[in-house]
């Protein structure tokens, strides 16, 4: 094996020199620098992060779907209530008309006449009387044979004394 010797001819091209770094431009901003290849890193998601993010995305979509469903259900319910409200309002008006018809004097008189009620031919006014004051329109007292006016008055007083506390009692 022959020893390695220097080449007999000089290479055709001058050996390439390592490029000397270019002088930095004087105006280069200070916040910029050259990034070395070793410094470049690829951002990679870890599997756990991916699973979590997928889960979150799914949950969000599911929540949106649920919200939309609830919204639709609410709207349907609202439509149903609107329809029911309209029906009930119409029913209220109808019943109001019916009540007014039933309360009308003509209907009541007709119903009374169906039950054989009749209007009196002559009105009789009952007017309170006191012993010392004549009352306009008062008729002369009528004596009924066999009746004791004092006993009748006593019975009336008794009835009144029974009724008065009841009348004065407060409503329950």
């Amino acid at each position, binding site marked *: 094996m022959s020893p390695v010797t220097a080449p007999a001819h000089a290479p055709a091209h001058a050996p390439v020199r390592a490029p000397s770094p270019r002088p930095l431009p004087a105006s280069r901003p200070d916040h910029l620098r050259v990034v070395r290849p070793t410094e470049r890193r690829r951002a990679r998601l870890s599997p756990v992060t991916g699973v979590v993010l997928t889960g979150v995305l799914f949950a969000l979509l599911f929540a949106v779907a649920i919200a939309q469903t609830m919204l639709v259900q609410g*709207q349907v319910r609202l439509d149903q209530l609107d329809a029911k409200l309209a029906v009930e309002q119409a029913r209220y008006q109808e019943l109001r008309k019916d009540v007014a018809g039933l309360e009308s004097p003509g209907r009541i008189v007709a119903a009374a006449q169906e039950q054989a009620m009749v209007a009196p031919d002559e009105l009789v006014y009952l007017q309170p009387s006191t012993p010392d004051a004549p009352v306009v329109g008062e008729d002369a007292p009528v004596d009924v044979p066999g009746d004791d006016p004092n006993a009748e008055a006593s019975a009336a007083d008794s009835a009144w004394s029974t009724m008065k506390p009841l009348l004065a009692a407060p409503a329950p």
Partner: protein
Amino acid sequence: MTPVGPPRERRHPRGGTAWRAGRPRVRLVSTLLVLLVAFAAISVRLVQVQALGGDEYAAYGASQRLQTITLPGERGSIFDRNGNDLAVSLPQRTIWANPKQIEDPLAAASALSGPLVLDAAGTAALAARLEGVTPDTQFAYVARQVDDAVADAVTDLELPGIGFLDESKRFTPAGDLAHSVLGSVDIDNLGQSGLEMQYEDTLTGEPGQLVIETDTNGRTIPGGEHELEAASRGDDLVLTIDRSMQYETERALRAQIEAKGAGGGIAIVSRPGTGEILALANFERNEESGELVATGNNLAATTVYEPGSVNKVITVAAALEEGLVTPETMLTVPDSLQMSDHLFTDHDPHPTEDYSVTRILTDSSNIGTIKLAQQLGKDRVDSYLRRFGFGEKTDLDFPNEAAGILLDPAKYNGTSMGSIPIGQGIAVTAMQMLEAYNVLANGGMYVPPRLVLETVDARGERHEATSGEPRRVVSGITAARMREMLVNVVAEGTGTRGGITGYRVAGKTGTARKPMDTGGYEDEAGNYHYVANFVGFVPAENPELSIIVVIDEPSGDIFGGTVAAPVFADLAQYGLRLFRIPPPLVGQTGPAPDTAAADAAGIVDAVEQERVRATAATSTTQPSASTATTRSGG
């Protein structure tokens, strides 16, 4: 070095026919051009759709999603003074058709005739409507404002091209009660008469609309378009009318008209102090059938009549107010008086004698009243008639209200000063006459009448209805004197049938000849026709109710004192009970007329006796004894 030779042919890989590689540049350019053209076409269409025709397409899209629902502005209700419904509007369904979607109109009409209860003619007419007026007709009414049962029955038919829409319909729950006052609306809910017409703007609501976005099933899309323009309900009217008083007024008036075989009648009940009309009834006979109907025409305000003797209070009040006489002043009164070519007479013959002014009114003396008018002179007579409200419309401003007829004094003829003071030769409405008596009830103040108490807007806020300002017509002293004289009329004069046990009633009777269309007061057969009326108020010392009753052309018994006064008494008794108006305290009242007892004992006033006898001997169409004689009276 490789030798250079001619190029070898390239063979198809499968060893078939040789093919040329061609020129890829051409293919590329061609493809590019095609893509460019396609892209350009898409771009143009995009601009066309999005930019140029964007609005049109947006509207088209919206029309498929958006639904506009018209919200009807409900017509306001009409209540009586106690809040009872007199007129209400209810939603009803109207059935319509799209003739373009109906293939067999006759079959559809036949199917609809069942639920709609149509006869053959009605079915044929419906079929014609379903065919459409023109080939492009897309809407035709089938039946308007039907009740739910009918609408449901039509729905069950499931006919194509038949649709429904909501409309409101006017109802009067109490039937024809106060029909002439309330008036009516047409099928489009526009007021045609009465208060419905007068208060059209107040009662009518403003329609609104709801715009919503719906899906293909008609369901509202949540979060979609939703624009609500709320409908505004019309205001409610609260009337001065009392439903019960109204019913009784109509009942009593109708009964008397029927009993007397009269042609019609009017009755008004009011509260003098406020001018509130509590009841107002009008009846007239159908000209064809002769049936007595509650007319839709408010005769009390729209028609005039010659009032007769009830007008004498104006003449007497004017004479008192002018200081020409007092109630006790005596005048020499013969039983007849010639004026120009006309002989005026009192109703009952009597020797020439001295009458007090009170007696003139009590006996309803024509000649005595004419003598008072002569002292006044025609200008003052005319002035007082107008001050009492005659010759101009009342503040009711009712549709078609009449102003009455008053002659200009300059146009008075030789008999005018004889006829006008006793209520002939002038024409007034029943409302005007009642208001004139209300002046006396109100201590000389004219209080304008009113039918509407207040309006209630959609928010429930109440607004008092405007009313005219009261004005003084005569002094309080004159009014008080007149009240006492009118009490005398009822107590012992021509109006005893208007008396009420326990109360003092002031009133006046009137029996007037009706002018004929041919001119004059006689019909073609030479007969007279009469109007009997009675006006009064109660209690006389503190009037709470005033009532006028006018009976048109009663048969047989024609006098106000026997035909109209009993109705007054019935209504006054009912009103006093209904409104809980007590009799005056002892010591505040004079002797009460006990007409019931008097009648029972056969002790009727002499004047009244005469009237009753005269009634028995005459009829409504009694021949006139003399065309040149006026013998009307109370």
